[in-house]
């Protein structure tokens, strides 16, 4: 087990901190929607000579405003759907973690600590224990902050290869090594006889399909399932190797950090999200859970970024196409239509070029649905770090609480309600929000309250078989 701890630091570094930058929700689809709204609105106002079907400018203004209002109504209406779309994966992740904790005793056995938490909690006095846990939490948080800043700096200076390599190494570790250990422990618990060859086959297939799904293309459900599984694995590692008080302290401090990092103007996560939005790229697919596919099929705009071209398929990986598009910038602005398409069009209707002027004229036509995406397809994104910390909270509650299932359930309900509230705020504010603070606060309050107050009460009531 000590070798395990020694290997972990290198990769733990990578894994830990990559997940943390994305402790936020974002409906960047909505953001880019609104920007397209604004862009097309501005373009209409700047084209006085374009034939706008004889309608005056203020009509167009009204249409723009009406579209924005409709947009907001739609957001609120489909907000409930998004809440359910996020409830299911969060619940699944928590269920997997709790089931594992309850059945496989490996994850509740104390087998040492990570090197990020060097101070032990087996001390003589309570004061010493408190001090040690505070120091542990401080070290862990500073590691996280340093790694987050490093990631943001790498992203800002476009060192995509480094980030990509880092992500690949850590997902390799998770998908192969941690799942091998997990499988081994499950087999040990249920006393299943297994040979190495079968295990190698299973782990190889699981890992390779996982790498492909997460980093490249794959069916959406499979990608979501893999993301849930790696979040659960990561949460289990945390539950095993973090001592008690340290774990609670880390949860509390990281939700404060999340709040600061996402909302402060100079916060690293906010800078990350804003840079990604400026460059019109999506954040790393290996770190974010998204509830729908994004179809960016919209009208040809004058952006030379061939993001539109690259994202006509239904996946989410932007790193490889992003590198490609930089080469294709030099090509003529063909409005997003590929060469073959243009040839076909020429064959059918004759050589009519799509010029910037014609495109502007078409866009100037007032139309009710500027939203080229089906509103139902707009999804919500949740960072994997959020999954991990929610599951750590519920897992720790089920592992160490005296109230057992009552405490676990109370924390579960509290976290879901926190998530609900966060999504409500997201619908109101429409920008990236931290998903950890509200849920973790509710979860912690409910954990300590249920464990210390409710549990003795319910215990006494159940003892006498009284019902309330």
């Amino acid at each position, binding site marked *: 087990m000590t070798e395990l701890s020694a290997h972990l630091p290198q990769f733990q570094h990578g894994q830990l901190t990559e997940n943390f930058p994305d402790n936020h929700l974002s409906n960047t689809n909505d953001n880019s929607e609104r920007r397209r709204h604004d862009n097309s609105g501005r373009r209409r106002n700047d084209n006085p000579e374009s034939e706008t079907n004889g309608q005056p400018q203020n009509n167009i203004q009204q249409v723009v405003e009406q579209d924005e209002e409709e947009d907001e109504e739609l957001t609120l209406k489909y907000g409930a759907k998004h809440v359910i779309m996020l409830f299911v994966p969060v619940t699944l992740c928590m269920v997997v973690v709790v089931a594992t904790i309850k059945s496989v005793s490996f994850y509740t056995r104390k087998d040492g600590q990570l090197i990020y938490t060097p101070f032990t909690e087996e001390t003589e006095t309570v004061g010493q224990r408190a001090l040690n846990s505070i120091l542990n939490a401080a070290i862990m948080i500073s590691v996280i902050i340093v790694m987050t800043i490093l990631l943001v700096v790498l992203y800002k200076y476009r060192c995509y290869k480094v980030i990509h390599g880092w992500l690949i190494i850590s997902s390799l570790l998770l998908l192969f090594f941690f799942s091998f250990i997990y499988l081994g422990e499950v087999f040990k618990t249920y006393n299943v006889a297994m040979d190495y060859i079968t295990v190698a086959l299973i782990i190889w297939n699981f890992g390779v399909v996982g790498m492909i799904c997460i980093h490249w293309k794959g069916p959406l459900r499979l990608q979501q399932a893999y993301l849930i599984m790696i979040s659960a694995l990561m949460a289990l590692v945390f539950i095993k190797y973090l001592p008690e008080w340290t774990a609670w302290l880390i949860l509390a401090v990281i939700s404060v950090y999340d709040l600061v990092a996402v909302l402060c103007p100079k916060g690293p996560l906010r800078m990350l999200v804003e840079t990604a939005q400026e460059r019109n790229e999506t954040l790393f697919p290996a770190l974010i859970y998204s509830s729908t596919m994004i179809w960016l099929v919209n009208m040809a705009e004058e952006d030379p970024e061939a993001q539109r071209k690259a994202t006509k398929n239904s996946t989410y990986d932007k790193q490889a196409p992003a590198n490609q598009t930089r080469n294709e910038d030099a090509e003529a602005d063909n409005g997003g239509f590929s060469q073959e398409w243009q040839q076909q069009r020429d064959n059918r209707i004759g050589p009519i070029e799509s010029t910037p002027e014609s495109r502007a004229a078409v866009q100037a036509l007032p139309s009710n649905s500027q939203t080229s995406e089906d509103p139902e397809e707009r999804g919500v994104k949740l960072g994997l770090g959020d999954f991990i910390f929610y599951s750590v909270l519920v897992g720790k509650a089920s592992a160490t609480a005296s109230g057992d299932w*009552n405490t676990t359930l109370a924390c579960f309900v509290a976290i879901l309600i926190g998530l609900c509230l966060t999504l409500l705020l997201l619908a109101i504010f429409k920008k990236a929000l931290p998903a950890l603070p509200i849920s973790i606060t509710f979860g912690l309050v409910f954990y300590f*309250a249920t464990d210390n107050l409710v549990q003795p009460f319910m215990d006494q009531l159940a003892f*006498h*078989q009284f019902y309330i």
Partner: protein
Amino acid sequence: AFFWLVSLLLASLVWFVSVRLSDRGDARLQHGLLVFGAAVSVLLQELFRFAYFKLLKKADEGLATISEDGRSPISLRQMAYVSGLSFGIISGIFSVINILADSIGPGTVGIHGDSPYYFITSAFLTMALVLLHTFWGVIFFDACEKRRYGCLGLVVASHLLTSGLTFLNPRYEASLGPIFIITLCTGLWAFVTAGGSFRSLLKCLSCKQEDNSRVMTYSALRVPCED
């Protein structure tokens, strides 16, 4: 469920504080404090049910304003049912899940002289309680909506009565029987409150299709919305 949990938290806080301040050795006092705690819990649950009603009313108005035809997509009756059901589910789960978890493990029921029917009576009591919470939810919301405070008082009183009857355990004939009678009566009351009647029950059971092809009501004649 969250609202019920918060009420439970506050009630157990009250009980905890009262136990801390009292003499631990006196068994009768502790029993009395437990009864007191249970009564406080019941009252707090109903209070939070009322608070939830207020919240849902506000949300209902909000939904109605942003919907297309000015009516909210969920009726207040549906909300009442869901609210009652969720109160019931979380209350039932909290009462029974630890018992269920213990029932898997090795052990003998009632080996120390307690009743050997503990598990099965717990199961039936929990079922009754879940159903009762659902019915109380429906009746409560309707009473609040129509401002019939007598009905409201009756709901609270029946909750207190049910909880009080469980204090008679393990004399199960005295507690289980009346509780089931109360459940049946409350169920009928809730059914009537929600607008059901003997005729509608027959219609539902005979699986007759609604014959609405011949007569078209005026409100159904709507201009198709422009798209």
